[in-house]
């Protein structure tokens, strides 16, 4: 596990001379892309030039033009508008997974690292088990057979993500456990809960933040894969993975209908991974633990 020696001043207060920084242009660009995607997720239908489901068979399967910047699909729907509106499905699910795994994983990880013993043993074995499981494959089988689509997939992915988070937090908490400030707090008679949440956890924040970004990227990739297989969002809801599958047959007539959402997935996931790695790298020795 990576050594975290940053003081408890949080994320921005650790300019290290050691860390090689990535070109900040790249990070700025990544942050810009993520903000853009989030804006589209919040207000997509207002931003989009056309209705996401507005069909117009007269202009079906057109190549990009000034009117339809990325062309249209075989129902005459504007591809750009569908990508913009589809940002919502690309943000909500991954955000739920990242936050869900964050809450459960951190709670269990703190308890395991702080108290040790049986809880610790159990959580570590669970993490061992989950680590080698092909999460997406399990989601395919469960969602495909049980049904329930998007939110069942989100639940399955939370279940398969939080043990890994717990293990990462546990390792970091274990290192903090023996620091003098924890001993001091315990000596003062502060309750275990308060020591864990108010004293130890803030010191883990950089690691936790970085990991949450990486989880977001992974979840986006997994959920879009499910939608690509027709197991994600309902058919009519615009979604990048679903658009890829529906427009794959148009790749020769309007390639952008297919490449557009593909590029959207790649840009968003890469940006999230870059931001996560950047946070991690700035605040820790080197991203070896991942």
């Amino acid at each position: 596990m990576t050594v975290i020696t940053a003081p408890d001043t949080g994320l921005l207060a650790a300019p290290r001379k050691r860390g090689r920084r990535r070109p900040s242009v790249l990070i700025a660009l990544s942050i810009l892309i993520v903000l853009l995607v989030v804006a589209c997720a919040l207000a997509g239908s207002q931003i989009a030039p056309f209705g996401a489901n507005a069909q117009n068979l007269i202009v079906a399967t057109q190549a990009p033009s000034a009117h339809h910047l990325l062309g249209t699909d075989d129902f005459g729907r504007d591809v750009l508008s569908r990508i913009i509106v589809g940002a919502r499905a690309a943000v909500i699910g991954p955000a739920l997974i990242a936050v869900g795994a964050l809450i459960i994983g951190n709670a269990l990880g703190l308890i395991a690292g702080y108290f040790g013993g049986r809880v610790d043993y159990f959580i570590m074995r669970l993490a061992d088990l989950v680590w080698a499981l092909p999460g997406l494959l399990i989601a395919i089988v469960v969602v495909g057979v049980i049904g329930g689509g998007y939110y069942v997939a989100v639940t399955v992915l939370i279940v398969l993500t939080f043990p890994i988070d717990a293990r990462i937090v546990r390792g970091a908490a274990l290192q903090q456990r023996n620091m003098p400030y924890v001993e001091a707090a315990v000596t003062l008679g502060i309750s275990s809960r308060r020591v864990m949440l108010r004293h130890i956890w803030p010191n883990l924040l950089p690691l936790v933040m970085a990991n949450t970004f990486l989880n977001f990227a992974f979840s986006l990739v997994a959920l879009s894969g499910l939608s690509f297989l027709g197991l994600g969002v309902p058919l009519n809801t615009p979604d990048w993975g679903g658009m890829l599958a529906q427009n794959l047959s148009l790749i020769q007539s309007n390639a952008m209908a297919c490449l557009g959402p593909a590029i959207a997935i790649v840009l968003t996931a890469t940006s999230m991974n870059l931001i996560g790695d950047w946070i991690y790298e700035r605040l820790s020795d080197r991203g070896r633990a991942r």
Partner: protein
Amino acid sequence: MRTRQVSVFLVRRILALVILLLLISFLVFGLLYLAPGNAIQVLLGTHPSSPAIIAALKAKYHLNDSFIGQYLLWLKGAVHLNLGISIQTGQTVTSLIGSRIGLTIFLGIYAFLISVLLGVPAGVIAAMRNRSVADRAIVGVSLLGVSVPAFVSGIFLLYLLAIDVGWFPVYGPGGGFVDRVWHLTLPAFALAFGVMALILKLTRASMITVLEQDYIAFAQARGVGPVRVIIRYALRNALGPIITAGGLILGVVITGAVLVEQVFALPGIGTLLITSVEAKDVPVVQGFTLLAAAILIAANFLIDLCYLFIDPRITAGRGAQ
């Protein structure tokens, strides 16, 4: 003494694996048993129904038995490689899987070879030139590989190399070995991209740790040649963490194959899974899941065996703890 330890270790591991596989088979069966939807309706399809037909179907598929009874029956069949009959096609699940698995194994091995042949050297170079421009470029590629799902890289390759310049076929598995290699090149590279990124990341991290060790410096000081130091001294010791992740890597390969087969319309086992999931063909999904679990468990067992040979320090007795 050592042989005895090794055999105790092996017997213990195999027992543990059998228990694990039984547990998984129970979960798989239970999950699909609880799945909504009436098997009779799927079986009937558009055929007219009558009480006699329903009773006959129930008898044929043992739907009147208790849950445990059905599970034991299924398990008994599974041990004899009889996984039941596909509802959708009427063929046995074993023959359905058997007729399609060859293509997927071909694709998986092809992609795995590409990943190892590109990923390990790139990881070693990145570790040797840690924090140089080359390292950054390699790390950048691996970051992209982790961010780009296999079906997306598949679509890019399809567009660029099959449709735009037309060097490769757009879809289909091809017949004969050479034709098959040619047909599966794009799918294999699409699948390999993410796998390679993972192997590269693991190799790089592991090599950086090993190259900092004193024995590397001593070997260099003794005048051991650089190639020998990197391969015999460093890479051999760096292999541990990479091989440990073998199960993880295999999982990525299987999942990726399911997606890539969809992109390139390959009639492999992944496509079988997706069509069966869509048709609620429960016996096939059960069979696939059990097979995937068995493959992953067997792979993890082989990884444990590899350890015995790679790292002589691990005595079998300690490894069994």
